[in-house]
């Protein structure tokens, strides 16, 4: 009785696994059959015209922060709402009790590595219009640095140096920078979030593509600070219950 039930469960599992494999390879097969560029659609126009219109070599960033910048503003509003909700539900006003962190080997090694991680995230944010990446990805790396601090050095280390008030200020500053660039678009070009071509040093250089660079900086600050706030409000509650 027991053996037959086990065999039936195993058969069911193998059946599900084989169906999953079948669909995975089906999707892969049809993904390879997609045409490279469909003629006569809006994607074709983005590929052809985006470099001369926005000055950004990375077409994905050009679409995200120039053509569809209003959608990106909506996305950062969603993150702002998520951060507000999590802080409202989870946070309690108490200093987290710090664990001692990991061993001294890990601490020293991470101390050597941290500047390079921060430099990499800054590189991804500022070169968003030239190479893969952009404000969102670089900002997440900035937030992850703060999270690794709490794992390696204990949670009070980051909390004492960068207070939640500072992080909230950074997040709000990023959002305000985004909206400020949008209003600059109204003043100079006549449309909200239109690309203001100031400080243009020629296509392909670091200071180019107008407002895309500044929007990248704002989004990076906002995302990094927001994710750090989410993680620390979760951690706080854990340590608060450990206290009792």
């Amino acid at each position, binding site marked *: 009785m027991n053996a037959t039930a086990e065999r039936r469960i195993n058969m069911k599992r193998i059946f599900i696994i084989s169906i*999953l494999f079948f669909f*995975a390879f089906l999707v892969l097969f049809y993904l390879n059959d997609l045409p490279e560029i469909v003629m006569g659609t809006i994607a074709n126009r983005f590929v052809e015209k985006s470099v001369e219109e926005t000055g950004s070599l990375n077409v994905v960033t050009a679409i995200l922060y120039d053509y569809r910048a209003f959608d990106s503003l909506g996305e950062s509003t969603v993150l702002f709402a998520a951060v507000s909700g999590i802080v409202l539900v989870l946070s309690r006003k108490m200093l987290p009790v710090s664990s001692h962190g990991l061993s001294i080997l890990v601490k020293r090694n991470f101390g050597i590595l941290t500047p390079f991680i921060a430099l990499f995230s800054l590189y991804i944010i500022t070169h968003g219009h030239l190479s*893969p990446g952009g404000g*969102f*990805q670089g900002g997440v790396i900035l937030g*992850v640095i703060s999270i690794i601090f709490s794992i390696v050095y204990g949670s009070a280390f980051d909390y004492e140096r960068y207070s939640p008030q500072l992080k909230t200020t950074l997040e709000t500053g990023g959002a305000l920078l985004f909206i400020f660039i949008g209003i600059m678009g109204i003043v100079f070009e006549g449309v909200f979030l239109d690309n203001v071509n100031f400080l243009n040093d020629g296509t392909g250089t670091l200071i180019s593509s107008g407002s895309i660079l500044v929007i990248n900086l704002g989004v990076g600050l906002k995302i990094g600070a927001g994710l750090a706030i989410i993680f620390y409000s*979760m951690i706080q*509650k854990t340590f608060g219950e450990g206290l009792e």
Partner: protein
Amino acid sequence: MILLEYLLIGFLVLTAIMAISNKEILISIIFLSIFSIVLTAIYLLHKAPDVALAEAVIGTGLNTAIFMSAISHVRERDECHCREED
């Protein structure tokens, strides 16, 4: 290249199944993190480095840390319940 893609897709499905079917939650979190790494490689093969970067950072780094903190939370509560029953 096509062989590598088939291998990665197969590995992706395997890690997803392992993450769902494992009873220990910690092990399924680690399998989810492996899933994200394999998915990053597939995104790179399909020439989407932007999405690959986001997936690598969020799926491997951030998700694992947040899930870990959530799990430590749940475990503490479970232990407290056990003591009350004793």
